C-alpha cells in the first residue's frame, strides 16, 4: 500500500475539478440571474421536477453507455455534448430566447452529478481505497476553488463581455478545458481505461437485481437520496430565511458575502481538516458526520421556531450555519466516503452503479424535495413544518449512514474471505453402481477407495461385492471388507474380522499391523479390542502408532492406559496430529493428564500439547490452557492463542488477559523495531534476531485481534501479505474497519510489510524508550527489566558486542 499515488495523478484530477468548478459557477450565475429576472422564484419548483425527469434520463443514458464502452469515452461524449449545449444556449439567449435559462437551471445539477461521476470514476481507477480516503478531499477542493474562481471571474467577465448571457462563452471555454484535462489524464495514465470487465463484445448489462444484490448499492442509493434531500431542504431554508430578512441589493450583497465565506470555509476544511479526519476516523465517521451535524442544527432550529419564532434572526443565522456545515461536510467527508464505499462494488458494475446512485437517485431526490415543498406551501404549512420534516429526514439519513457503514465492513470482510476447502456433505446413494464397480475391481487401490468411501456411510452397495472383496489377496483390503460387512450385521464377517485383525496385529510387517490398527476404528471388532489397541499404541513403528491413535474412540476414555498413551503421543512429532484428534474424542478424561503435562517444565514448547490443551479448554475452561497463555516465552503464548482460535475458543480467554497480551506484544514490537533501527550494520545475527522478534510480536498482535474481532482479521492480514496494489489497500482498509482506533494505531504499522522497519519504529515510537545502538545492545544482552525474555536475543547481542557468552 503506497501512500503516494503515481506522480501527476492528483494534480490532473484536481485540475479537472477546478475547471469543472469554474464551469458550473459560470452556469449558475447567468442562469439564475436571467431566470429570476424573467420568471420570478415561483417557477423554481417546476425546475426541480424537470431536474428529476431529465436527470434520470441522462443518467440512464450514461449508465447504459458505461456498460458498452470505456469510462473516458462516456465522459468525453457527455462533456462535449454539454459544451455544445452551453454554446447553443448562448446563441439562443443572444437571439432573445430567455426560456433557455430554465434549461440551464435544470442542466446545472445534472452536470454537477455527472462531473463527479467522471472524476470519481477516474479516481477509482487510479487510486486505491486508502489513497482515495486521503487524497480525494484535495481533488474536491479543486472544484470548490474553481467555483470560487468562477464567481470572482464573473464580475470582470461581465464588464469585458458586456452582458450576462455572454458569460456562457466563458462557461463553454471552461467546459472545453475540463474535457481537455480529462483527455490528458487518459493519455498520461492509460490505466484509467480499466474498462468494465467483459465490456468488449459481451456488453453485459447488470440488471437492477444484480446491481442491488449485495445490498451495498441499494444502501448507497438510499443514503445519497437522503443526502440530496437533506442538502436541498437546508438550501431552501437558508434562501427562505434570507429572503425574509433581505431584499433587492441587500439580498444580493448577503448572498455574495455568504458564498465567499462558504467557499473559503470549504477550501480550508478540505485542505486542512478533511484528509486527517478521514485518515484517522475513516468511513465510520465520514458517513454519519454530515447528517448528524445537520440534524443537530435542525433540532436547535426547531427549538428556536417553537420559542422565539420563525422570524428570529437567530433562526436565520442557524440556517446559514447549517447550510455552511452541510456544504463543507458534503465535500469533505460525505463525497469521499461514498466514493470509497463504491470501491466495494465490482469494477465491471461500478460506473453503472455510480451512474444510477448519483445520476438518477440524486435528481429524483431533488424532484421529490421540490414536490414536498410545493405541497407544504399549498396546504399552508409554515417554515416550522419544513424544519421538522428536514430534522426527521436527517435522523433517518444518519441511521442510513450507520447501516451503510456496517454493510461496507461486511462487504470488505466478504471480499477478504478465503474460500474454504472444508468438505461439504456428500451423498453416496446415487453412486452405488460406481462403488460396486470399484469394489469388484482387480486393483487393490480401487477397492481401498471404495472401502474408504463406504466407511461410516450407509450404502446399499451389494453384500456380494463386499464378500468378494473380503477374499482379496491383500489382507488390508480383506479386513476392511469384513469390517464393512460386520457393520451391516453379518456375524460371520465380524468373527472373521476379529480373527484376521488379531493375526495382523502380531505380524512382523508394519503394513499389516497398520491395517489391524485401522480396522479397530469406531466399530470395535475384536473382543480384546482395547488390549490390542494398547499394544498397537506401543508399536515401535510411528505409522502404526498413528493408525492406532486414529482408532481411539470415546468409549476408550475409561481406560487410563489408553488415555496416558494418547497424551504421551502428543509430544512425539510423528504422532502429534493423530493424538490431538484422539484427545478430542476422549473428552474430559484426558484433561487432568493434559494439564499435568502442560504444567511440566519445558513442556509448553511442545506445540501439539498446547493445541490439544486449547481444544480441551473450550469445554473445560481457561485453567487447562492458562499455563501456556501466561508462559514467559512469547512463542508459547502465540501457539496457545493460535490454538485457542483454531479450537473456536475465543470466549475462553478473558478480555483483560487479551489486553495484557496486546500491550505486551505492542511494546515488544516497538522495542524490537527501535533496537533494529539503531543498528549500524545492515546485516548480522542480531538484526535477524530482532526481525524475528518483531515478526513474533506482529503475529501476537494479529492473534489477539483475531480472537477479539473474529477471523476477518486473519483474512485481511492474508490479503495484506499476499496481494498488491488496490487489493492490498483493501486488506489494510478491512483491517482498519474491523478493529478499534487504538488497536489500529499499533496493528496497521506492524501489519503493513510495505513499510520500512524505520517507518514502523517511528509509528510505534511512543511505546519504546529512546536509546542509541550501544544502549540497546547492552539492554538486549543483560535484559535487566526482563522484557526481552529471549536467551537467543541475549546471545546475539553479546556476540555483536564481542563479549563471550555468559
Amino acid at each position, binding site marked *: 500500500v503506497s501512500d503516494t499515488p503515481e506522480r501527476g495523478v492528483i494534480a490532473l484530477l484536481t485540475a479537472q475539478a477546478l475547471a469543472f468548478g469554474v464551469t458550473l459557477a459560470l452556469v449558475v450565475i447567468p442562469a439564475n440571474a436571467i431566470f429570476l429576472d424573467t420568471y420570478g422564484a415561483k417557477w423554481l419548483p417546476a425546475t426541480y421536477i424537470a431536474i428529476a425527469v431529465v436527470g434520470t434520463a441522462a443518467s440512464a443514458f450514461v449508465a447504459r453507455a458505461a456498460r458498452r464502452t470505456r469510462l473516458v469515452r462516456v465522459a468525453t461524449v457527455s462533456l462535449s455534448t454539454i459544451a455544445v449545449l452551453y454554446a447553443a444556449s448562448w446563441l439562443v439567449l443572444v437571439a432573445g430566447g430567455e426560456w433557455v435559462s430554465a434549461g440551464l437551471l435544470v442542466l446545472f445539477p445534472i452536470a454537477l452529478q455527472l462531473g463527479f461521476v467522471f472524476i470519481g470514476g477516474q479516481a477509482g481507477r487510479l487510486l486505491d481505497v486508502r489513497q482515495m480516503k486521503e487524497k480525494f478531499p484535495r481533488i474536491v477542493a479543486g472544484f470548490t476553488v474553481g467555483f470560487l474562481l468562477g464567481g470572482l471571474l464573473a464580475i470582470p467577465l461581465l464588464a469585458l463581455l458586456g452582458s450576462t448571457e455572454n458569460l456562457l462563452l466563458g462557461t463553454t471555454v471552461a467546459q472545453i478545458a475540463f474535457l481537455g484535462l480529462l483527455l490528458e489524464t487518459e493519455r498520461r495514465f492509460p490505466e484509467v481505461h480499466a474498462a468494465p470487465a467483459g465490456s468488449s463484445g459481451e456488453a453485459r448489462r447488470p440488471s437492477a437485481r444484480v446491481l442491488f444484490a449485495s445490498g451495498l448499492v441499494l444502501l448507497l442509493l438510499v443514503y445519497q437520496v437522503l443526502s440530496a434531500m437533506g442538502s436541498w431542504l437546508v438550501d431552501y431554508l437558508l434562501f427562505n430565511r434570507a429572503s425574509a430578512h433581505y431584499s433587492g441589493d441587500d439580498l444580493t450583497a448577503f448572498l455574495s458575502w455568504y458564498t465567499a465565506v462558504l467557499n473559503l470555509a470549504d477550501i480550508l476544511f478540505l485542505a486542512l481538516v478533511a484528509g486527517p479526519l478521514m485518515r484517522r476516523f475513516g468511513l465510520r465517521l465520514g458517513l454519519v458526520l454530515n447528517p448528524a451535524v445537520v440534524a443537530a442544527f435542525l433540532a436547535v432550529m426547531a427549538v428556536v421556531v417553537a420559542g422565539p419564532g420563525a422570524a428570529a434572526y437567530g433562526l436565520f443565522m442557524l440556517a446559514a450555519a447549517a447550510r455552511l456545515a452541510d456544504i463543507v461536510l458534503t465535500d469533505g467527508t460525505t463525497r469521499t466516503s461514498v466514493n470509497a464505499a463504491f470501491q466495494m462494488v465490482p469494477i465491471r458494475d461500478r460506473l453503472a452503479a455510480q451512474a444510477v446512485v448519483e445520476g438518477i437517485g440524486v435528481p429524483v431526490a431533488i424532484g421529490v424535495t421540490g414536490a414536498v415543498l410545493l405541497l407544504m406551501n399549498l396546504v399552508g404549512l409554515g417554515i416550522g413544518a419544513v424544519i421538522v420534516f428536514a430534522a426527521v429526514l436527517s435522523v433517518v439519513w444518519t441511521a442510513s449512514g450507520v447501516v451503510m457503514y456496517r454493510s461496507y465492513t461486511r462487504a470488505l470482510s466478504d471480499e477478504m474471505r478465503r474460500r474454504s476447502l472444508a468438505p461439504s456433505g456428500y451423498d453416496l446413494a446415487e453412486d452405488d453402481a460406481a462403488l460396486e464397480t470399484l469394489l469388484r475391481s482387480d486393483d487393490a487401490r480401487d477397492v481401498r477407495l471404495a472401502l474408504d468411501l463406504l466407511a461410516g456411510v450407509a450404502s446399499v452397495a451389494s453384500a456380494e461385492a463386499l464378500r468378494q472383496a473380503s477374499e482379496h489377496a491383500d489382507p488390508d483390503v480383506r479386513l476392511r471388507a469384513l469390517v464393512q460387512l460386520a457393520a451391516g450385521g453379518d456375524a460371520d464377517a465380524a468373527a472373521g474380522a476379529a480373527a484376521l485383525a488379531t493375526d495382523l496385529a502380531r505380524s512382523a510387517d508394519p503394513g499389516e499391523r497398520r491395517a489391524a490398527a485401522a480396522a479397530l476404528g469406531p466399530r470395535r471388532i475384536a473382543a480384546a479390542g482395547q488390549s490390542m489397541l494398547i499394544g498397537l499404541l506401543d508399536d515401535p513403528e510411528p505409522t502404526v502408532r498413528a493408525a492406532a491413535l486414529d482408532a481411539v474412540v470415546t468409549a476408550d476414555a475409561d481406560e487410563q492406559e489408553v488415555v496416558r498413551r494418547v497424551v504421551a503421543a502428543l509430544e512425539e512429532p510423528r504422532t502429534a496430529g493423530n493424538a490431538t484428534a484422539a484427545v478430542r474424542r476422549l473428552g474430559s478424561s484426558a484433561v487432568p493428564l493434559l494439564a499435568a503435562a502442560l504444567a511440566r517444565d519445558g513442556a509448553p514448547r511442545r506445540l*501439539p500439547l498446547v493445541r490439544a490443551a486449547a481444544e480441551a479448554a473450550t469445554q473445560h475452561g481457561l485453567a487447562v490452557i492458562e499455563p501456556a497463555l501466561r508462559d514467559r516465552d512469547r512463542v508459547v503464548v502465540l501457539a496457545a492463542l493460535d490454538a485457542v482460535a483454531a479450537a473456536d475458543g475465543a470466549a475462553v480467554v478473558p478480555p483483560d488477559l487479551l489486553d495484557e497480551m496486546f500491550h505486551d506484544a505492542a511494546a515488544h514490537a516497538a522495542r524490537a523495531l527501535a533496537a533494529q533501527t539503531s543498528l549500524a550494520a545492515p546485516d548480522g*545475527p542480531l538484526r*535477524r534476531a530482532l526481525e524475528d522478534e518483531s515478526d513474533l510480536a506482529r503475529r501476537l498482535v494479529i492473534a489477539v485481534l483475531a480472537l477479539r474481532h473474529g477471523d476477518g482479521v486473519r483474512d485481511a492480514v492474508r490479503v495484506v501479505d499476499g496481494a498488491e496494489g488496490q487489493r492490498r489497500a483493501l486488506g489494510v482498509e478491512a483491517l482498519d474497519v474491523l478493529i478499534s482506533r487504538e488497536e489500529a494505531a499499533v496493528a496497521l504499522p506492524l501489519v503493513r510489510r510495505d513499510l520500512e522497519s524505520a517507518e514502523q519504529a517511528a509509528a510505534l515510537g511512543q511505546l519504546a524508550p529512546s536509546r542509541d545502538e550501544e544502549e540497546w545492545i547492552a539492554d538486549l544482552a543483560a535484559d535487566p527489566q526482563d522484557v526481552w525474555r529471549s536467551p537467543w536475543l541475549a546471545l546475539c547481542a553479546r556476540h555483536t558486542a564481542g563479549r563471550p*557468552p555468559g
Partner: protein
Amino acid sequence: MSEVAQASVGSLGLVERVAALHRVQLFGGIPGRVLAAVAEAAVEQRMSAGEVLMEEGAVEAHLYAIVEGRVRVHRGDRALVELGPGATVGELAVLVPAPRAASVTALEPTLVLRVDQGVLDELLVDWPELAHGVIAELVARLRATTEFADQAS
C-alpha cells in the same frame, strides 16, 4: 532456553551455526531462536577434498547442510550435480528413510552440519512453512537432475 546461552559445540559458535543454517535455503525462513535448537542438535563435520560424505546405498536418516566448500553428488563415476554453501544433501532419506540414492564427495575442504531426522520431524510439526521449503528444494533437485540427464543423453 537457558542452555542456548551456554552452548558452543565444535569449532563454530552457536551464533555462527545459526547464521550458517540461515544461509541454507531450506531453513532461511525459520526464526533464529528456533534454529538455535536445531544448531545445538546439529553435528559439525569437517571434510577434506576427496573425502566421502555419503555412500550410495547406505541407510541413514539425516541430512547435511553445506556451510563451506563444495561437494559432488555422483553415482559411481558419473557426476549428477555439484553443490556449494547453502545447499542441502540427503533430505530424501530424512523424509522417507531409504538407501541413499547417490554418493556425495567433498571437492575441496568442506564444512557441513548434520541434522538428524528427529530434529527435522519436530521442525516440520511446529513450522509447516518448512514443508514448502522441503518441497521447493526437492523440486529444484529434480529439475537439476533432469537437466543433467537431458544433457548427458
